[in-house]
């Protein structure tokens, strides 16, 4: 006690209160007080893991039901047994194996990749552009993709042949708007606002060009284009996943790896710099990664809205904005939601299928509005 008092008095002109506080600051922490004070934080961390676990579980349930559903009906349990048997090379029922692994599994994998990829891309875009309305398509990828797809469907013009005519075209053209945004932001510093404005401007230009193309198109092409535009999982085939799988997986992992830096970025560009993070460089890296990932996804499934914009918001509402958890949770939640939407789309007016993009909007819109109204805490500024 005397030692503390002496220590407190020995300093120059400051009050005993401050001297005592600084002594506390310089000492090791009082474990008991610390544990009590941090119990809320620790519960919050557990909640984050629980949410991710729940979403992964939901993925498996939705995927199992989705694979089992169809003219050739398979029970939930059997679908996983069949997949397991296929992996271990111990195929029991050849027909079931073909139906599950060759015909239906690709669609589920495509849904998982697209849902996870778009949700992560959205989370990344919202973080780097500091805008809750940012989404993967803010990069202009969508307008470029539609233009590329239109060229292929309407004029039969494509940079690639065969199966890749539409997909390859959409992919290449969807990267053009991104190149424009990068050029614009290089010329006039990469501020988030410049990037969004650039993206919107380029989007209008490409949309206008697409409209012009459509003037020449026949009804068949129009309906083909329409189907692709609303978002569909109908192109799912193992061969097709070859290009999309590595790009999407790499993109997701890259953004996840950057999540600590994305956290720093949320404190502002200038402040990030003093914490050792170059905001401008981070922004360009994430933008390019998101662009490639979105381009790959859009080329296969068309424009599936909602996932990229809203999935990250829903996740933030539940587990907060720490990107280290937000990104993996978005992966799991995005995949689960898209699987669920596809399952509903396939079953609700079976044997006909409602396209996944439509269900997504019907499912997601009201759910999001409910969350907005229900939560009174402010999740974004």
């Amino acid at each position: 006690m005397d030692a503390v008092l002496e220590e407190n008095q020995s300093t120059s002109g400051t009050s005993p209160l401050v001297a005592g506080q600084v002594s506390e600051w310089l000492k090791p922490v009082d474990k008991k007080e610390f544990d009590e004070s941090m119990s809320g934080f620790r519960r919050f961390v557990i909640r984050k893991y629980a949410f991710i676990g729940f979403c992964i579980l939901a993925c498996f349930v939705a995927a199992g039901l989705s694979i089992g559903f169809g003219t050739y009906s398979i029970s939930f349990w059997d679908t996983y047994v069949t997949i397991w048997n296929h992996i271990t090379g111990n195929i029991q029922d050849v027909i079931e194996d073909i139906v599950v692994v060759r015909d239906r599994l690709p669609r589920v994998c495509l849904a998982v990749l697209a849902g996870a990829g778009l949700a992560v891309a959205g989370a990344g875009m919202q973080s780097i552009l500091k805008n809750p309305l940012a989404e993967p398509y803010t990069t202009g990828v969508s307008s470029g993709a539609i233009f590329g797809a239109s060229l292929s469907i309407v004029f039969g013009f494509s940079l690639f042949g065969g199966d890749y005519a539409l997909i390859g075209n959409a992919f290449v053209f969807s990267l053009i708007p991104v190149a424009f945004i990068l050029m614009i932001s290089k010329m006039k510093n990469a501020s988030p606002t410049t990037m969004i404005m650039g993206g919107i401007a380029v989007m209008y230009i490409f949309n206008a060009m697409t409209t012009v193309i459509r003037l020449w198109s026949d009804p068949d092409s129009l309906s083909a284009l329409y189907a692709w535009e609303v978002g569909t999982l109908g192109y799912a085939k193992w061969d097709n996943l070859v290009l999309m799988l590595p790009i999407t997986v790499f993109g997701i992992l890259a953004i996840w790896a950057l999540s600590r830096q994305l956290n720093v970025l949320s404190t502002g560009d200038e402040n990030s710099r003093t914490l050792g993070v170059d905001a401008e460089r981070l922004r360009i890296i994430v933008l390019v990664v998101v662009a490639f990932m979105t381009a790959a996804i859009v080329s296969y499934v068309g424009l599936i809205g909602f996932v990229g914009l809203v999935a990250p918001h829903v996740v933030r509402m539940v587990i907060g904005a720490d990107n280290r958890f937000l990104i993996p949770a978005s992966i799991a939640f995005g995949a689960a939601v898209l699987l669920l939407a596809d399952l509903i789309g396939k079953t609700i007016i079976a044997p006909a299928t409602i396209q996944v993009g439509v269900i997504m909007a019907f499912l997601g819109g009201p759910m999001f509005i409910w969350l907005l109204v229900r939560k009174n805490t402010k999740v974004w500024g």
Partner: protein
Amino acid sequence: MELVVKDLDFGFGDGRNVLQSISLSIDKPGLYCIIGPNGVGKSTLVRCINKIYKVPDGKVFVNGKDINEISIKENAGNMAYVPVGGDDLFALTVVDTILIGRHNQSGWKTSEEDLETVYKSMKLMGIEELGMKHYNELSAGQHQKVAIARGLVQGTDFIILDEPTANLDVRYQIYVTELLKELAVRSGMTVLMISHDLNITARYADEVIVMARPGVIHSMGKPEDVITEDMIREVYGVDCDVIDAKGKPHIILGPALRID
């Protein structure tokens, strides 16, 4: 920590120099306060020192090394920065927000040591009750306290604060200034802060740096030598009486003399 600024001119490329031949050197721990009227380049100066703005080679040196030869990552280990206000968009909890200050020390996973430091910083700033609140739910004064805590957990022996007492009530204005002073004495920190409160500056600063139009250093030295009636009239354009309060100057402000 040793900081040297040598004859620094700095502008934003419109032909006008915001800072004009600024020279200063800080070579021992203490509380250094930059004062001066609005728009004389106080914030610009600190942003030149902490690499937010890029200065020409051979102008700013930290521990004898040209600041341009130090990476921003390395620099983050040299000095912390507490900006005025904050612009967090997506709400992190207060604990998570302060944890960001540990970006350089901590690994992928938040360690116990990180959390302990964060907890202590919250106690120091009197905000340990706010740990699980969302940053966006806080008041401006609470934002300021979180920002200071975030600067302190960075663990550097040099900290730069841009108006740390803006938005704080009078108790916390004094408390925070005393705290920074005490940290300077007890843990050998160099604290460089921009301040608008002349009386608090006069009472606690070890050294005062007075900036004036057009972006120059007017004077630099101990408060009792620098804070005078003449200086305040000349730099701020405000009439005043400076009286002695236990060896430190105390300013009683009069009417404004001019607008410029």
